[in-house]
């Protein structure tokens, strides 16, 4: 695995149910994502985008195959570590359709919760959080509650939260679905900027084809297979 490669998936399979209820979702998926890349993952609803994302994110267990995250092989027909949550905590940042901030924690606490779980020094994590809030232009909101922020501001906090653990990978599940087109473009541009500036691999699930030109590559789930397209013209 090259030093640039952040994600490598080989012969990954996932199915649900047995007998009459058997559904093959992902069949022999093979792809990789480099650091600094923003890759879009598109597919019709129910095709397995989130399932694939959750497998890469060590949340859902595949049936077979291999997953590399950075230098570490985390899955080869079974999880190679018992602490998949630790991998998530240390290597991956998650962004969701809604911001999913903890409503009873203020913004700074929402950001520093994960570093606290990683046993990172409180001063250090606070300074990182402030830095990120400044980066996202919401530095004055650190003691506000999520309910006091607008949808766009909350989504920026959610992105900041995903960056708090200096992740190698960001998995974004439809991060623009709840936003208008202008804000959607801003968020995707922001993700691209983060991918480049923070040297992070970003996989973004999206339904919005207007966002695809902003991405470096596109992965499509077609007939249970993951197909790589280098740009929007190939999709058309």
């Amino acid at each position, binding site marked *: 695995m090259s030093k640039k490669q952040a994600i490598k998936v080989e012969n990954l399979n996932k199915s649900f149910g047995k007998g009459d209820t058997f559904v093959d979702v992902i069949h022999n998926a093979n792809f990789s994502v480099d650091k600094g890349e923003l890759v879009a993952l598109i597919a019709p609803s129910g095709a397995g985008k989130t399932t694939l994302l959750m497998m890469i994110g060590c949340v859902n267990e595949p049936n077979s195959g291999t997953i590399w995250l950075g230098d570490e092989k985390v899955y080869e027909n079974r999880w190679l570590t018992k602490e998949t949550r630790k991998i998530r905590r240390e290597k991956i940042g998650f962004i969701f359709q809604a911001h999913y901030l903890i409503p*009873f924690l203020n913004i700074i606490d929402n950001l520093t919760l*994960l570093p606290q779980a990683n046993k990172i020094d409180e001063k250090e994590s606070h300074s990182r959080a402030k830095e990120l809030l400044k980066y996202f232009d919401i530095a004055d909101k650190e003691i506000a509650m999520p309910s006091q922020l607008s949808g766009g501001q909350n989504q920026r906090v959610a992105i900041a939260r995903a960056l708090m653990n200096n992740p190698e990978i960001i998995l974004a599940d439809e991060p623009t679905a709840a936003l208008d087109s202008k804000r959607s473009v801003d968020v995707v541009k922001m993700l691209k900027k983060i991918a480049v500036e923070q040297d992070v691999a970003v996989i973004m699930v999206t339904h919005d084809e207007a966002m695809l030109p902003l991405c470096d590559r596109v992965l499509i789930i077609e007939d249970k297979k993951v197909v790589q397209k280098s740009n929007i013209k190939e999709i058309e």
Partner: protein
Amino acid sequence: MIHLAKEDIKHTLGKFIVTAMGVGMLLGIVLIMVGVYRGMIADANVILDDLNVDLWVVQENTLGPFAEASRVHEDLKNTLKGYQAIDKAEAITFQNLQILNGNRQISVMAIGYDIYGDINPINPKRLIAGRVLRNEHYEIVIGDKTGFKLGNKIHLGRDIYTVVGITHGTVASGGDALVYLSLKDAQTLQFTYTNKRVQTDKARGIVNRDAHLVNTIVATINPTYNVDKTAKELRKWLHKSVYTRKQQTYVLTKYVVEKASKQIGLFTIILVVVATIIISLIIYTMTLEKIKEISIMKLIGIPNITIIKMIVEETLILGILAFVFGNIFSHLIYNKFPKNVVLLSSDSFMLFIIVVIASIFASFIGVKKVISADPTSAIGG
């Protein structure tokens, strides 16, 4: 350092406090129930403390006047006084009576004693108005619980008595107020029948010879003698049952208060179980309300132990807060109960330990929910 439990409680403070107050009222009732039991024990000891005697001589093979009927001859006190070990000895009667105050029927326990004797059952510290009995007839000293005032007239048996003294805190084990009569009046009330009954008995050839009976002889012993040894000696020679103070206390608590204490104990256990179930359900509901946040926390990698700690801490805070409210509630209402309620800090401490243990148990159901929560459920994946 982020305290998830503290922040969550702060977020829903009003709801949390109202919930704690509700559970607290339940715990307050638990404290009151225990207090009622303590009150019964305290009440049972009032007579023993006020009489402050070493020995109780009662009818043979009976447990004495508090547990069952006992009749001994009044002059037994003179026999007792003949013993070197005995310092003082007096005859006492105990009788349950119903007296009428306006339209209100009041249960009382009447204690008859020799007003010229060496042992006086009226504790001067408890006398809050008037005086002790000075005349051998038609005077009564009565507990303030009855509502009578000095100078009031009370119809008892065939005679009318005048209230000459009021006492406070003088109750029997059942919570009935104590009233004090001269021995002669008490004997008349207890052992003298109505004119009609006397006529009927005469016609049957029965002569009423019970007038010099009493229910017990109480005695103090000379300090140089051993109480237990003296009681043992008296049992040999008097053919009576003789109880020491310790034994009489045991009789009162074991035979008189035991059933009530079992009943109260059972109620208390049920209330604690109900409180635990309620706390469990509250915590379960609170966990369900947060399940999306919990799922997200699990998804982004927050360890289970951090989330479990939040649930257990919230349960403990709820339990402890409820305990504090329960204490305040019980102290606000305890004196509104008709029976004596004694709230002891040792009982509060015991309840605190139980609440802590019950809260830990109650948190299990929420913890189970946390462990089984699917991290992807919140995002619908």
